[in-house]
């Protein structure tokens, strides 16, 4: 991400209302946001050249769940940070199992989403050689 550009995020969630609301809020806060309704669509988009600064993944989705989606993306060499968004009680375990960089527990407000995404991007930028 260049300093001149707004941070970009790919929202992967099967609930259209959540995707649309999150994207509108993210854009209000200065993010550039794109969306995918399931894991397979997200994988195709990244394989086709989309390169967001951070991924925001729901866990419970038809087809690949959020963890399986991230595992597949990592296996294909996509290294951008990923934030898990879930209402699961064992959210921290799921995040650790799949190597998510951060976890947000639903219900969650936008300010917490914004700061977690920005922190994840900053940490990833700081860890690059």
């Amino acid at each position, binding site marked *: 991400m260049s300093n001149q550009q707004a941070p970009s995020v790919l929202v992967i969630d099967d609930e259209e209302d*959540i995707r649309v*609301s999150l994207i509108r809020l993210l854009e209000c806060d200065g993010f550039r946001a794109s969306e995918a309704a399931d894991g397979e669509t997200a994988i195709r988009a990244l394989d086709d050249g989309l390169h967001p600064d951070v991924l925001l993944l729901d866990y419970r989705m038809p087809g690949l769940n959020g963890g399986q989606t991230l595992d597949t993306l990592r296996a294909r060499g996509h290294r951008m940070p990923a934030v898990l968004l879930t209402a699961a*009680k064992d959210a921290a375990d799921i995040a650790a199992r799949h190597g998510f960089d951060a976890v947000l527990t639903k219900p969650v407000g*936008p300010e917490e989403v914004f700061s977690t995404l920005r922190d994840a991007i900053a940490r990833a930028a700081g860890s690059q050689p």
Partner: protein
Amino acid sequence: MRFISPSPATDPEAVRAAWHEFVRSGLIHPDRVRPFIARAWTRSSAAGCDPRQARANALSAEDTISLIRRGGRLVEVATPFLAALSRAAGQERHAAMLGDASGRVLKIVGDPQTISDENFPRAGSLLSEEVAGANGIGTALAEGGYVELVGPEHFIEGFHVFTCQGVPLAGSDDQPVGVMSMSVRREETAGRVRDILFCASEAAACELLSQHLTDTIAAPASIEQVAEKLRQDIVQRLTMARLQFELAARHIARGSTATETLQAAQELVRKFRRQAAVWRNLVDHGTLAAEPVALTDLVEDFLALLETEARVAQTRLLWGRAEHCIALEDASALSQRLLSAFVGAMQAAEPGSELAVQVVRTERVATVTIHRSGVAGPTLAGTVTAPLIG
């Protein structure tokens, strides 16, 4: 939500004259003040509240910190909603407040001029009617519903410059655990933030309920895994409501209307409440005491509750024939049997299948059937029967 003050406030000058007369003589003109204001003034006066000056009522700094610590979860849940209310008020002078169930202020968010005014309540101030007269926090608690007090409808003269609205917050057992209020200088601003205050109070109460479901209720082992998935789906509704609410706050702050967005948020909050009630019934260990159960409504609730589970299983649950039936059975046991039938049918179905649900009554029993679609015609995928009442 109970609306205690649905009728518009009467002419402020007539109310002001009525206030002066009440303070002087103790007499109320019922045609000049709204009924809930008359009740609030009477309670305030009977408690010995001084209309010319509020009693000293603030806690020490140490006690205030302790109070806020005790209100931990309520403060934690309400704080983002107070921030959103404050955002919606924009540049107007305002204060969004959270009080506990006794009317003690736990948190204030507002414009710097209002909240730094030494005469304005602060965290630790007691705003019960006994101490602070008729006001947005104390009167909402005393009346048990939404109230709006415009200018001289406040009992204490120092509050006459404000229009205050308050809504009690219900805890997981529906009893009030606190109150959320909004104080503004201009009545027009009060109108602009009214709907978002309703929505904030409902959504905050639902977040308290959501935490209760998550932290304190354990499902029977036989349905533990699926119950946990359904709990997550219910919380998803609340997440949607929260995001819609936050969008509405931003629209209102820009001077736009947000009626549709707030209606969408409130509809999601209603869905959350209904599904939370179904879920609680489902995970209840039951009493095995037969009781009347509106079976068709219960099945309809299950179809809504299982919407996400069906989508994850890549199946569709559809209504077929639905006859109105009142079954006589333990509601939790019946709910658990319905869940097993629905989940079993979904697990056995091929991706892309449709599952048609029917409720049919015979002379003595009601039967819920689930039929799976297929090229060779529908196949029975699940059945639940329940005795009918009478």
